């Protein structure tokens, strides 16, 4: 797991004082020393902590239902996307593509932390997609393109060129 995600999130949230993180274990789980208590551990836990610190609670969902949906996709990010195998990538893309068919964001019409962390986690996979695959997972690439152009999110990640017009269209030829 990568500490740059937390630094990027801090910048997006406009937090003035950057935190110093360390990691623990083989999986390099991020840790934040906390003055008021025991250290905080885990990417999701730390990301939610930063959002609360910046008083941007709407990023965690604006209703009990949406908060549960956000937590679910954050868990999906750290359990399914981290260290996934080549076979799993296809399933993940296929499922996300179906899910995003009728949605703008993961929590429907609301931009949340789930979009940010899933974007950071899926970026290395999307970079490697061939154009045909981009078309196969058109809803994922549409969502991805939307998030990478969301102000202040992309940071140092290179933009992925997403085709807006189909070239391999099976329907019109």
């Amino acid at each position, binding site marked *: 797991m*990568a500490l740059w995600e937390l630094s990027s999130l801090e910048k997006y949230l406009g937090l003035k004082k950057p935190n110093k993180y360390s990691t623990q274990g083989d*999986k390099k*789980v991020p840790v934040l020393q906390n003055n008021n208590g*025991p250290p*905080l*551990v*885990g*990417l*999701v*836990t730390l990301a*939610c*902590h930063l959002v*609360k610190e910046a008083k941007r609670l709407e990023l965690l969902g604006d*209703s*009990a*239902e*949406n*908060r*549960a*949906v956000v*937590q*679910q996709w954050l*868990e*999906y990010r*750290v*359990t399914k*996307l*981290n*260290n*996934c*195998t*080549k076979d799993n*990538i296809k*399933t993940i893309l*296929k*499922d996300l593509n*179906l*899910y995003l*068919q009728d949605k703008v964001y993961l929590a*429907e019409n609301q931009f949340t932390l789930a979009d940010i962390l899933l974007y950071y*986690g899926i970026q*290395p*996979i999307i970079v490697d997609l061939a154009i045909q695959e981009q078309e196969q997972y058109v809803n994922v690439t549409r969502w991805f393109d939307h998030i990478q152009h969301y102000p202040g999110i992309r940071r140092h990640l290179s933009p992925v060129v997403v085709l807006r017009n189909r070239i391999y269209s099976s329907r019109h030829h």
Partner: protein
Amino acid sequence: MKLFVSEGNPHCLKVLAALEVTGVQCDVQYVNHEETVVPFLSRPALPAMFLPSGLYLFSANAICQYLFEVNGQESSELCSQWLEWEATDLQPALLLALHMAVLQGKGSQVSNVLQGPLNYLDQSLSKGNTPYLTGEAVSVADVVLWAALYPVLSDSSLALGERKSVKPWFDRVAAMHSCQSAVQKVLRGKGLQGMKSYMQRQPAPQSSQCRDTQPCNSN
């Protein structure tokens, strides 16, 4: 709001226990392990909850958090941290342990697999020095971790050894009537064997795969 569960699925133990502990009103439907409830997922995922908004929850931990929040108990930071640990650290070890114990008859090796997470839990409980994981009262973290560990900790044949802080915590949660009732609904008094048909439908545990597969997302 509707909850879909299947018998013998340890994740369903979490949500049924959370439902009983919180007393939230919700329809519960028992389905087969293979039933596709969540329309966008390739693999059947249970438990699942259909929300009034039309969205689905397919993560047992998120469903439990939701039930507690509906009941007025929002997760604290420490609670969420335990849930994240459960999903990322405990679950892979548990899946492997259950695979060995239920399907391969290698119950004697389970102790090795679970040693790390159980010791971590024990140390945290003794450092915290409170009856429950996050303080003086039961939280969603206690229910989720208790339910996750129930199949292995309640089976004495696995010889996991007694840990001085895990044992009283586990017994304290288990003593709640709501938890006993959920156990009966999911395992039907059959213990580990009650999970056999569920385990047979699970993909082989990741930890045995990842040794020869290159992670795609290691940065």
